[in-house]
C-alpha cells in the first residue's frame, strides 16, 4: 500500500500531513490542523454534501405533519400526531407544519437556523413503483431507466476545476456497492466496514498483478485501497469497530466513516448514504412505533454526523430524500400505501435554514393528487439543483443539460445557503 502511494504525489502528501497530526499524539490537533488546511483550501471546494436516500417511500405527512391543515386529522385518524404542545405532540415549525416527535435533533437544527424543510415535493415520476421511483430519483431524468448513471456522479464531473484539485475521488458511497445516483464516469469510492483481516502485502501485490489485465477489477481494488487509507488515516480503525445492530445507533458505524472521509483534507467532498425500511404499509404507528423508530435512527444518525464532523459541519449540507410519498389517508391496516408528494430535508452548518419551503396544496379531497396523495408542487430536482449550484458551484448550464438532462424549466431553489 505504502509503496503504491509513493508513486502518487497527492496521496503521499496527504499521508504526510495526517502522519504529522497523528505524530502530535492528540487527535484534537488533527482537528485544528484540518481547520487551517480548510482555510488554506478555501477556493478549493471545501463544501461538503451528503445525500441520504430514504428507500421505501417516506410518509411525509407523518415526518412533517401539517397539523394546521383542517383535513389532516380526518385523513390520518388514529395515526394523526398530536399538535405541538401536547404530550407526545409534534414539534412546532410554524403555524402549519411540525416535525415528528422522533426528530428532536432536526428540530433543534431548525431552531439554530440549520434546517430547511421542504414539503409537497416529488420527483417527476408519477407512477407508484418503488423501484422505478428510486431509479428516477437517482438517474435525474423524468423516466425510469433513461440513463445508467446518476445525477450526483454527473454533478461531480461538472464541478469547477478548483474543487477537483488533489482529489483522487470526489465522491464516496457508504456501503459495499455504489447506488445508481453515484454511478457514472466520475471515479467514486465505496467503503463499508470489514470484519475480515487485511491481506498481507505480498498477496495483495500478487492479486493486483493478477488483475492487471482486468480493468474493472483493478480499478475496484485500487479504489478500495484508497478508501481504506482515508478511512483509517483519519483515526478510524475500520477493523476494530464492531457491528451495530438495529436501534437508534444503527447507522453510527457508517456515519463515522462518512465523517472520516469528509473531514479528510484530500478526501471526497460528496457522500451518498442509503437507508431502507420506510415502506410502512401496515402498523406504521404514530408518535411511537415503526416509523417513529426509523425517524429516530435518521435523527440520531444526522446528529452523529454533526458531532463527528466537528468544524467541517459548518461547510456541510445533508439532503435527505425519498422516491415518493404515501397515501394521504391511512389504509385498512393502520399504514399507508404508495403515494406521490412527500417531505424532504436540507440540514447542515452551511444551510440557511429555520424555514419551511412549501407551496402547500392542502389536503381537501379536491386538492389531493388523484384524490389520494399529497399533490406535488415542488420538483425535487429544484432542491438538488439549488444545492449543487449554490453549495458546490456546479454551473447552471451543466445542471440544466447534463446533470438533469432537459431540465431548464426546473429552476433551482435559491438562497438555501449562508453567504
Amino acid at each position, binding site marked *: 500500500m505504502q509503496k503504491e502511494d509513493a508513486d502518487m504525489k497527492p496521496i503521499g502528501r496527504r499521508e504526510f500531513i495526517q502522519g504529522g497530526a497523528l505524530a502530535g499524539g492528540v487527535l484534537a490537533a488533527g482537528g485544528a490542523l484540518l481547520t487551517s488546511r480548510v482555510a488554506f483550501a478555501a477556493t478549493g471546494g471545501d463544501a461538503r454534501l451528503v445525500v441520504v436516500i430514504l428507500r421505501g417511500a417516506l410518509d411525509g405527512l407523518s415526518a412533517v405533519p401539517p397539523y394546521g391543515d383542517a383535513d389532516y386529522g380526518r385523513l390520518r385518524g388514529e395515526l394523526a400526531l398530536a399538535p405541538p404542545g401536547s404530550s407526545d405532540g409534534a414539534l412546532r415549525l410554524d403555524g402549519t407544519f411540525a416535525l415528528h416527535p422522533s426528530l428532536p435533533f432536526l428540530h433543534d437544527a431548525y431552531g439554530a437556523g440549520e434546517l430547511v424543510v421542504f414539503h409537497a415535493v416529488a420527483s417527476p415520476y408519477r407512477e407508484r*413503483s418503488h423501484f422505478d421511483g428510486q431509479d428516477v430519483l437517482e438517474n435525474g431524468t423524468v423516466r425510469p431507466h433513461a440513463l445508467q448513471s446518476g445525477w450526483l456522479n454527473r454533478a461531480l464531473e461538472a464541478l469547477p476545476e478548483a474543487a477537483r484539485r488533489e482529489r483522487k475521488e470526489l465522491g464516496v458511497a457508504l456501503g459495499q*456497492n455504489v447506488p445508481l445516483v453515484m454511478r457514472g464516469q466520475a471515479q467514486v469510492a465505496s467503503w463499508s466496514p470489514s470484519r*475480515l483481516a*487485511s491481506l498481507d502485502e*505480498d498477496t495483495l501485490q*500478487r492479486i493486483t498483478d493478477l488483475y492487471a489485465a482486468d480493468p474493472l477489477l483493478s480499478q475496484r481494488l485500487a479504489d478500495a485501497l484508497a478508501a481504506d487509507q482515508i478511512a483509517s488515516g483519519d483515526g478510524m480503525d475500520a477493523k476494530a469497530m464492531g457491528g451495530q445492530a438495529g436501534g437508534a445507533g444503527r447507522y453510527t458505524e457508517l456515519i463515522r466513516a462518512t465523517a472520516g472521509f469528509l473531514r479528510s483534507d484530500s478526501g471526497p467532498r460528496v457522500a451518498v448514504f442509503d437507508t431502507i425500511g420506510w415502506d410502512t404499509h401496515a402498523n406504521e404507528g404514530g408518535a411511537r412505533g415503526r416509523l417513529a423508530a426509523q425517524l429516530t435512527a435518521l435523527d440520531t444518525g444526522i446528529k452523529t454526523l454533526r458531532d463527528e464532523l466537528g468544524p467541517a459541519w459548518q461547510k456541510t449540507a445533508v439532503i435527505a430524500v425519498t422516491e415518493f410519498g404515501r397515501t394521504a389517508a391511512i389504509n*385498512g391496516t393502520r399504514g399507508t400505501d404508495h403515494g406521490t408528494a412527500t417531505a424532504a430535508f436540507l440540514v447542515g452548518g452551511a444551510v440557511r435554514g429555520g424555514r419551511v419551503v412549501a407551496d402547500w396544496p392542502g389536503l381537501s379531497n379536491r386538492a389531493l393528487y388523484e384524490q389520494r396523495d399529497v399533490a406535488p408542487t415542488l420538483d425535487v430536482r429544484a432542491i438538488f439543483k439549488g444545492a449543487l449550484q449554490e453549495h458546490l458551484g456546479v454551473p447552471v448550464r451543466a445542471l440544466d443539460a447534463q446533470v438533469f438532462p432537459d431540465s431548464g424549466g426546473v429552476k433551482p431553489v435559491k438562497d438555501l445557503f449562508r453567504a
Partner: protein
Amino acid sequence: MQRMRSPVDSAIAANRFGLGARPGDLADIGRDPRAWLTAQLAGEPASVDYPGLRSTPQILTDALQIRREREAARRAVKMSEEAAATDSAGLLADVMKLGQLYRPLYVSEATARLQTAVGSDRPFIERLTYFWANHFAVSIDKALVLGIAGSFEREAIRTHVLGSFTDMLLAVERHPAMLLYLDNQQSIGPDSPLAQRAARRRVKAKLGINENLAREILELHTLGVNGGYAQADVTSFAQVISGWSIGGGTGRLASGPPGEFLFRAELHEPGTKSLLGRRYADEGYAQGEAVLRDLARSPATARHLATKLARHFIADEPPAAAVERLTRAFLASNGDLPTVYRALIDSPEAWAQPLSKFKTPTDYVVSSYRALALPVLEGKGALAGFEVLGQRTWSPGSPAGWPDTGADWNGASAVMKRVEWADAVGQRVGGMHDAAQLAPQLLGATLSEATRTAVAHAASAAQALTLLLAAPEFMRR
C-alpha cells in the same frame, strides 16, 4: 440447435448454469454440456433433507400459541384491549419469544439450503430455485417472515421449479410467508361483511384495503412495471384478493387450520370487479384465482420473466433475440417452465465468452464451497460468508429481490471484501488443496494463463488458493 462445441462449454454449464464446478464435475459433464443440463430437468426436484426442518403450518401454529398465551395472560389480569395495545412490555415479550422460536428455524433452513446446493448433482435446478425464490422474494427483515422464509422456498418455489409458472404463482400468492410479507392477511374490503358489521356497531377502527400485495404481484411477479396496468387495476386487484388470509388467528378470526392458506369470506370485498379490461364475477376465492391464472398467461408476464431469466443466465443487458425466444417458449407452452429452460439451454447467447455475469456473493460463496468441498458447519458459522459479503440469505430488503447486474455487486468495497474472504479461506484450508491442480478442474477452458501462472508461482499453498478464488474468472460465471 446444432453448433460447434467449444471447449469452454463444460465450464460454462457448471459455472454459469450451475452453482460452480466441484473437482471431477467437468470430466463428468464430458462432451455434451447441453445434454448434462437437459438431463437435470427430468424427474421431481430434490427435496431438502436436514434435521429440524418443519412445515409452515407447524411453525405458525407455535407462533400463534405464543400470542394466545399472551392474550390469555392479559385476560387473566383483566387488561383492557386498549391497555393491551400499549402494553409495550408484553408486546416486547411476544417479540422475544417469537425470535426464540424463529431464529433457530432460520439458521437451520439457511444451512440446509447451503448444504443442498453444495452437495447437489443437479446444480442447474438449485440455481433455478434460487432464481425463482428471488423473483418471488420475501425478506427476513420483516420479523414475521424470519421463521418461514425457508419453508416458503421449499413449499412454494422448489416444489414447482420444474412445473408450470401458473402453479408456482398460485402457490406463492397463497403462501403465508408472502401474505404476511406483503400485508394481505390484514386487508379488508370496505364493504365486506366484517366491515359492515363493524360499521353497524360503530367500531372506530378503520377497516380497509392494503394494496401492497396486489401491486407487487402486478409489478414484480407477473406483468412487470411496464406491463400495462394502472392504479385503478391495482386497487381493483387488491379488492379481488381481500380475504386471502391465513388460518388460525385469535378472537373473531380464530378460524381455519392454523398456518395454512384460508379464504376469509367475511373480509372479502363483494361484487364483480374490472381488471385490465376484463370483468371478473365474484365467486369468492375463485375470483382471485381467475385473475392470477389470466396474469400468468399474459404476454407481458412472459416477456417480463424472459427478460429476467436472460439477464440472469446470459448478460446484464439481455440480448433481444434471446428474450424473444424465451418469451415465445413461455407462451407456446402455457408457461411450462422446463420448456422455457430448454429454450435457454438452446440459446447460443448463453454460451458466449467472455464470462459476462459477475457472481453475486451467494454465487461466490456457494461456488467456493463446492470447489473446495468445504464442510457445511452446523449453526450460524455456515452463514457467515453470505453475511460478510453482503447477501445474508433471504434478506433482499425489498420485494423486488436482490438486484441481478454486475454494477450492483462489484463496488470497490465489495470486491475488496471478496478478496479478503478468499484470503481467509486460503489461510484456513489452503494446506489441504493443490490449487494448481484444482484450477483447471474448476475453470476448465475459461482458466486464464495469468491465473494459471499466478497460482503456480504462489509463495505458499494458502496463497495459491487465495489467488485462485480471487481470480477474475472465478469472480464471474
